[in-house]
């Protein structure tokens, strides 16, 4: 029976080819517009490490001066999202071995001339890097192509080791296994302990807002080695100070109240958070008593999602585009609905005849339902194709976004098809209902 209706639908579509083609195209365009924007928005607002939603936290210490708040947004005062070297050192050593903390890492930055040891000095390029702890890698689930993170020992001794990205590995070592090989950083020799495997979280939540959607820093070295070797690139480091030091030296900077380090922790379980907060509050109180923390604001922790929201790391414009695109889809569907009314009206004679020879209203509804279904499925598939094209075009236009947010995965493709079928079916209810209302007798006369 279904096959028969499908055949009927196909005949009808071929008979009204222009109208049907128009319907298919309108559905396809509407689906494509909404799916392109939805895909980008969905990919951008994905949680970078969903399984660590509540356990990974960024510490905000209320270390700012009394004169004015560090930042005020929407009438709410924020503590700095970065901290001073003193505080980072204190917090880190307090939980070096602790049942509470699974991982903890400081994040700083540095920039220097980098080349592979076999390259001539003229090939050296200025590159920015992160200075982190061993725990950075397991905490953020960084995948490795070759080797691993450096050891905890390397962390403590401040050894000259490095983890580089697969992209840099391609440039320096032609994508060969470079573990154990050496690179020159200025006048220092770094030994590579691991190569990350295409690690591009979107957004790059772990550092500052301005770097959340740009190319990642391709090298990671131990934080301790930055301190030991006095590696300081002022123009590459984002820092804010209550009083800016007049002396340019690194030691003065380290002793100052300038905030420049991110401090991430991962708790063993989310239920440990109150306990860690207790520790943090105690530390906060101690520092307030010592006169280091001058503001009344308490210190606190934020999980990744809250941090992204507070720092406004997700561009608002894409949300707006989704809103626009879905309204556009509604217009397309309304349009389709009027085309259907048109189409079914033209068929009233056929309906009358079928009714007269015994077809029930359900039969008529079934027949037109099949036709709509067929059109929406074809529209959905063409829409999917257009979405692919649209995303390709978006990659050229939205150059400030990483490529991978503009790729469609299977669930999204299925969603697009379901969206096409369901929305089209809903909007076809009324035209079908109207078609079934045709009186057998009224149409027979004009045959």
């Amino acid at each position, binding site marked *: 029976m279904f096959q028969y209706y499908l055949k009927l639908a196909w005949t009808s579509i071929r008979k009204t080819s222009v109208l049907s083609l*128009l319907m298919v195209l309108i559905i396809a365009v*509407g689906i494509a517009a909404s799916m392109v924007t939805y895909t980008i928005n969905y990919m951008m607002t994905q949680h970078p490490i969903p399984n660590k939603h509540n356990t990974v936290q960024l510490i905000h210490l209320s270390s700012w001066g009394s004169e004015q708040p560090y930042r005020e947004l929407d009438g709410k005062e924020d503590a700095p999202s970065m901290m001073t070297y003193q505080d980072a050192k204190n917090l880190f050593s307090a939980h070096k071995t602790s049942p509470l903390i699974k991982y903890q890492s400081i994040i700083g930055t540095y920039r220097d001339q980098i080349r592979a040891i076999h390259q001539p000095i003229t090939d050296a390029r*200025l590159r920015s890097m992160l200075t982190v702890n061993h725990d950075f890698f397991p905490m953020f689930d960084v995948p490795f192509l070759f080797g691993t993170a450096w050891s905890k020992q390397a962390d403590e001794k401040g050894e000259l080791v490095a983890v580089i990205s697969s992209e840099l590995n391609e440039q320096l070592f032609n994508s060969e296994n470079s573990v154990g090989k050496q690179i020159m950083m200025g006048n220092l020799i770094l030994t590579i302990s691991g190569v990350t495997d295409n690690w591009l979280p979107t957004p790059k939540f772990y550092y500052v807002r301005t770097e959340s959607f740009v190319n990642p820093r391709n090298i990671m070295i131990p934080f301790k080695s930055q301190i030991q070797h006095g590696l300081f690139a002022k123009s590459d480091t984002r820092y804010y100070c209550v009083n800016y030091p007049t002396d*340019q030296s690194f030691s003065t900077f380290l002793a100052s109240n300038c905030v420049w380090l991110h401090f991430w922790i991962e708790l063993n379980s989310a239920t440990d958070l109150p306990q860690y907060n207790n520790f943090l509050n105690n530390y906060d109180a101690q520092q307030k008593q010592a006169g280091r923390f001058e503001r009344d604001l308490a210190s606190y922790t934020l999980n990744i999602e809250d941090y992204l929201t507070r720092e406004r790391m997700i561009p608002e414009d894409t949300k707006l585009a989704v809103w626009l695109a879905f309204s556009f889809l509604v*217009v397309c569907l309304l*349009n389709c609905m009027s085309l259907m009314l*048109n189409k079914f009206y033209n068929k009233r004679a056929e309906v009358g005849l079928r009714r007269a020879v015994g077809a029930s209203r359900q039969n008529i509804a079934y027949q037109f339902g099949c036709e709509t279904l067929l059109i929406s499925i074809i529209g959905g598939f063409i829409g999917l194709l257009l979405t692919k094209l649209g995303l390709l075009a978006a990659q050229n236009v939205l150059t400030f976004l990483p490529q991978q947010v503009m790729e469609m995965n299977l669930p999204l493709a299925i969603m697009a098809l379901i969206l096409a079928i369901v929305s089209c079916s809903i909007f076809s209810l009324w035209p079908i209902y109207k078609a079934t209302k045709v009186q057998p007798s009224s149409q027979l006369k004009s045959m």
Partner: protein
Amino acid sequence: MKSFSLIIKSLFKRKTTTLLLILQIAITLTILINATFILIQKQGKIDKPSGVDTHNIFSFTTNIQGPDNDVLNRIEQNVQAIRDLDTVYNASQFNAVPYSEIGAHVSYGLVEGSDNSMGSAGYYLSSYHGADTLGITLIAGEWFKPTDITIYDNTDPTGVKVVISKALATALFPDDWRQALGKTLYVDGSPDTIVGIADIIPGTWPSWRNFDKHIMAASTLKSAEPNIIVRAHDGVRDKAMEEVSKLLLQTPNRWIDKFKTLQAHRTKSHTNDTAIVHILYCVISLLIIVTALGIFAQVRFGIVTRHKQIGTQRALGASKSHILQYYMLETSTLATLGAIFGGLLTIVTNIYLIEEFKLIVVPMSYIAFGACTMILLSQIATLHPILQASRVSPAIVTRGG
């Protein structure tokens, strides 16, 4: 007027199609107005004049090696060497580069004390050569003298001379911006003197709401990694870039970073907006096509279903122009109703958009203009079916049915 009441009656009879059309016009209008409004704003931001010689300027950061206490002299030696190049018009050290998204901002006020702050403004430190290097036009007062330039070593210099942008002067004295000249401006608490007003000083963050408000202080930043801006002679920018790079890299262990033209900085800082503008153009044009199609289909449907009625009208003496008038009036009525609903919907969604996306209120003129466009669009889209309606032969009545 008689045909108007007829139209209303007939529209009531065909509620679904009427409502469908009105709804479609209303939603289209809502999207259209909001999208156009955002588009025009973004485009305006992109096209805003920079006020400087954008095409001939480039900038970079470099490392000045050597002892800390002598760093300013060595910066000046390097900058002077750049100035001596044939292709270079002028060069100067700055604390930040326009459109580079990295810069400084301060709070300002006309009265001392942090409670009397009037807002935030961008902050440049400029040497004596600053105005000439950027190509800034002063519209009142004068530029700094070489002796005015102080040294900024992270302790706020007090009592320096500053040049401010006209936008900032207007913010200080809304009635007459010229009054700002010679006044004391408290910049983060330091009493500075306004000696000049520039037409435009481009800021560092184009998306910042205080982008237009800028202060240039007569001071050079003591930094071993200075930002240097170079203005080449007309048309030889790329050659000048090569020469500057060659000159600087003669020193061992010297690096040059962020070596970019001002045009590139500007384009990059606008990529976000440019992308949105592209998307909005697509949305608007697709929307217009789809809606025009929809109106066309629906009006055609309305006419086809009433062929016989038209025939009867014609048979009873209505002329072709009567029919034409009738259906054009009907379409206009529908479009007007749609436009009214759309206008209301626009206002409602705009309120939501303002809260959700921090947009500003759509001016009434946009709504009026959008409504007119919709009515016109519906007339154009329905021209063909209406013409066909007027050609319906009276004889159709006599045929069967």
